[in-house]
């Protein structure tokens, strides 16, 4: 139980950091050995910054990369950052669902940051909002 609480705390810290970063108050030092800026592992959390358009064309690459990180580094939680994303279709739901399946059996959680109205709507329609945590932005 203590372990779970510890990880929960990690995720919360990360989310706090992200909201600060958006306001331009924090500077994050890039962790070592990262090839792609879109994928970062911070405190056992895999941070995925999604592209502007999340469709089937981009989904294959994102899934492949994310799975590599999940298996190579000991990832407990996955955070999807939709800050740059203006379009998403069911392929995006597939990406989230696939990652959720891979980590939920080990007690991992999926967080979603900066989802705009349309993305929230898609998450709601597909029922994803029940299994992942859509983080509300505190303004």
């Amino acid at each position: 139980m203590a372990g779970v609480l510890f990880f929960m705390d990690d995720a919360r810290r990360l989310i706090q950091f992200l909201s600060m970063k958006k306001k331009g108050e924090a500077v994050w030092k890039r962790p070592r050995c990262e090839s792609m800026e879109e994928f970062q592992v911070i405190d056992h959390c895999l941070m995925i910054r999604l592209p502007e358009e999340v469709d089937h064309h981009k989904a294959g690459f994102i899934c492949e990369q994310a799975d590599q990180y999940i298996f190579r580094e000991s990832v407990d939680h996955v955070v999807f950052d939709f800050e740059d994303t203006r379009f998403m279709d069911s392929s995006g739901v597939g990406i989230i669902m696939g990652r959720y399946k891979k980590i939920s059996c080990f007690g991992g959680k999926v967080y979603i940051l900066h989802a705009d109205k349309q993305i929230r709507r898609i998450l709601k329609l597909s029922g994803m909002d029940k299994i992942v945590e859509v983080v509300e932005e505190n303004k």
Partner: protein
Amino acid sequence: MERKNEMLLEFDAISRNEGFARVAVASFVSSLNPTLEEVADIKTAVSEAVTNAIIHGYENLYGYGWPKGGTSGHDGPFAGRTDGDEAGTPADGSDGAGANEDVLIHDGKVRIHCILEGSLLHIEISDQGKGIENVEQAMEPLFTTKPELDRSGMGFAFMEAFMDELQVESAPGKGTKVYMKKRLGQSPWIGGED
């Protein structure tokens, strides 16, 4: 009398064209001054239908070779080819020319036909791919024939939710035709009180 506007678009079944297709349709309806939500709905629905045509209708095989004159029940681009054949071809020194003779390069097209009638948008997206055996089952939310590809199975559910009307016509080997209708300018905001 309501004015009519029509558009026909045909493109190669490659995943790179998905973005182009939805932006093209969104631009086509822009003369009606649709709301941002309506544009987003149309883009999502078009993207779903086009993606379905590319990865399910044509099994994402654009540019691969299909055996020419093969049986109707071919299984893939390299059906009928065996390791023995591959080892044997280089001996002729003309495997390139040989491939052209035996293999028909798959060049499937996706077709989008849009008609604007006043504020009513009709979209028909068709392919000449393998078709759907059981349309009712395919339209069930979360049903997918390709779970290994991280597909959510929500394609038809989204099309249904974002458009006013959805009809799917398909038979195995006959391709698929997806017809969607949406009235612009008076759509309620579905599924979000936030």
